[in-house]
């Protein structure tokens, strides 16, 4: 235990090789600056925690304990294991989702999306924008692509590529086979100009 105490003291004393090589100061400063701590919450937590604690209080040096709701990556169980029971429950009541592939021009690989998770085009756009971190505009004759760089198109059951947004939502999800996020300059042929 003495050895431990010695180690403890050394950490905070001026130990030659520690202070000459690595210091906590920012370049140009001589003393150790006060290290301000912030609360642990970051704005990447699951949504249930975000509302109340997303602002960083710089004077608080204690930690907000993790919410009772789901914490990202906890408990440490792989995703496919979390779904074992859920799959059983889902298959018995709602039936399987409508999964379509989504590609985005320039992205190295595709994603899969369950259209049943959304009830409107707005929700779908939001979901896609979150997934691909881009801005997609719904096309309108007057405004073009609304100033965004991407347009959303889909392949229907007959194999034709269509602009998303023309038909009622329910009809759309029953005919949509896959989605493609195009650069809006390439989508010109579908009837728009920037």
């Amino acid at each position, binding site marked *: 235990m003495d050895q431990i105490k010695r180690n403890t003291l050394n950490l905070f004393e001026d130990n030659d090789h520690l202070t000459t090589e690595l*210091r906590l100061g920012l370049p140009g400063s001589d003393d150790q600056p006060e290290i301000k701590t912030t609360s642990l919450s970051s704005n990447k937590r699951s949504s249930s925690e975000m509302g109340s604690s997303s602002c960083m209080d710089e004077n608080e040096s204690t930690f907000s304990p993790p919410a009772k709701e789901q914490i*990202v*990556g906890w408990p*440490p169980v*792989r995703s496919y294991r979390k779904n074992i029971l859920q799959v059983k429950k889902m298959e018995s009541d709602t039936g399987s989702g409508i999964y379509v592939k989504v590609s985005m021009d320039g992205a190295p690989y595709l994603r899969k999306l369950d259209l049943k998770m959304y009830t409107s085009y707005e929700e779908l756009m939001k979901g896609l924008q979150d997934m691909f971190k881009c801005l997609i505009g719904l096309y309108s004759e007057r405004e073009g692509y609304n100033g965004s760089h991407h347009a959303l198109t889909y392949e229907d059951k007959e194999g034709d590529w269509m602009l998303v947004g023309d038909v009622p939502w329910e009809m759309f999800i029953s005919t949509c086979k896959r989605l493609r996020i195009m650069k809006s300059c390439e989508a010109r042929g579908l009837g728009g100009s920037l």
Partner: protein
Amino acid sequence: MTSSFPEEVLEHVLSFLTSQTDRNAVSLVCKTWYETDRWCRNRIFVGNCYAVNPRILIRRFPDVKSIELKGKPHFADFNLVPEGWGGYVYPWVVELARAYPSLEEIRLKRMVVTDESLEMVAKSFNNFKVLVLSSCEGFSTDGLAAIAANCRNLRVLDLRECEVEDLSGHWLSHFPDSFTSLESLNMACLVSEVSFSALERLVARSPNLKTLKLNRTVPLEKLSTLLKRAPQLVDFGTGAYSAEFRPDVYSSLAGVFSACKNLKSLSGFWDVTPAYLPVINNVCSQLTSLNLSYATTQSPDLTKIVSQCCNLQRLVVLDYIEDTGLNTVSLSCKDLRELVVFPSDPFIGDVDVQLTEHGLVAVSEGCSKLHSILYFCRQMSNSALIQISKNCPNLTCFRLCIIEPRAPDYQTLEPLDTGFGSIVQNCQHLTRLSMSGLLTDRVFEYIGTYAKNLDMLSIAFAGDSDLGLHYVLSGCDRLRKLEIRDCPFGDKALLANASKLERMRSLWMSSCLVSFGACKLLGRKMPGLNVEVIDERENVNSIPEYAPVEKVYIYRTVSGQRFDAPDFVRIMGKDKDAVYNLS
């Protein structure tokens, strides 16, 4: 002395050394030994694909037959590493194809594998035999089709827990009729249905097939057809194990199982219909490994099965087994070496399942050979941990996950420091430890003092101050992998132990208190380390230097910084244009 020792003799002696660690030690003895080792070493293991690069590898080892590469850090398994971080195998495959046309084996873990990479593997290596992809992603069944169609000497195709874009099951039909060398096929993670007749024909023409792990779409009724074709199987994974009970199906299945005299390992059992479980009764006593972690059935059914597995060495099961089932395990499975208990419902608070620390204590009491534990439960006590440490002094791996973060000893409401302290003190061979529950800096003091053989440590929601991290980094001499999340560890301990980081493979810290400034300083001062700040916040460029980063991943490397990182990954402290070529 060395000049009178013929190289051929040295080479012959070295050929008996197969472990990577031994080979590495040998290569440090002197120049002659280094040269001899590099010319005749043909199995290579790279624990971090960014620690080295293909060119350095190829320059040192001219003749490689087998390579194993690992990419993303372990916490990627729990979605803590954002998509697009890295770990691409393609650049490696390009160079390997050029340098080693007679490469036979590729094993990858947590890497991004594209169809393009698989196609290149399929076309570049004439004698390709073994492909093992563990927790990999980025490829589709088209890539598998390329492998099936072109690798005429393939023996092993093992997809472990991969995320595959499953376009169709048609890939399996690409194995040509002339292909008969298959020894091991694991397709359990695939979703699409394969052609059953193609599968049956493949099994029938593979006399050396020892391992077959089916995916969920292969129905129970068809299992006997397959097993009849492969009674020599050693390791078998069923598909979905549910069907309406029919006596003819039952007896047919029981019959074929009985004929599998070499069967040692069973898995699968998705959606299990309990009535069909007893078909394996006759093989239970043969089993050394049993994975029932998808068998969502109650304790009595599970207990009946394990009670007959008197030679079991490895058991993976859901918490449905409950304490009573584990008690049976402790009485029946005297040869047990490894126990894994997963949670059936990780998120719901109150659960009816009666699985507590008592089950684990019982197994530790009854199974003296137990050396590896992964256990998910909802309550733990110091006294239970102390008991376990005394019952199992030979533990090498102890991973305990108490589902509620920071849960104290449920009896005394104290931290679990003494319990885990007892584990590290009594289990001197412990190489891997994962902790949970309420833990203060004290537990790290114990770990630093006693856990001298610890190789990998995982910490979450623990500790009080930088002291905790300092104890670990300064005390654990053999520590190579450290992963930490949501702990109050910051700059002080990290910077004070900077040189230790060069003697480790990697350090992961997320949701801790390490600042941008410290990361930059570390990256600048330590050319042998890549300090990657992983931060997805939109305003990250305006966050002050003293503020904590979201995540930091630090690893030693001889390859310098990498240039395939996405914009949310910043390699700190390195001149962006400089290439460090430390050969």
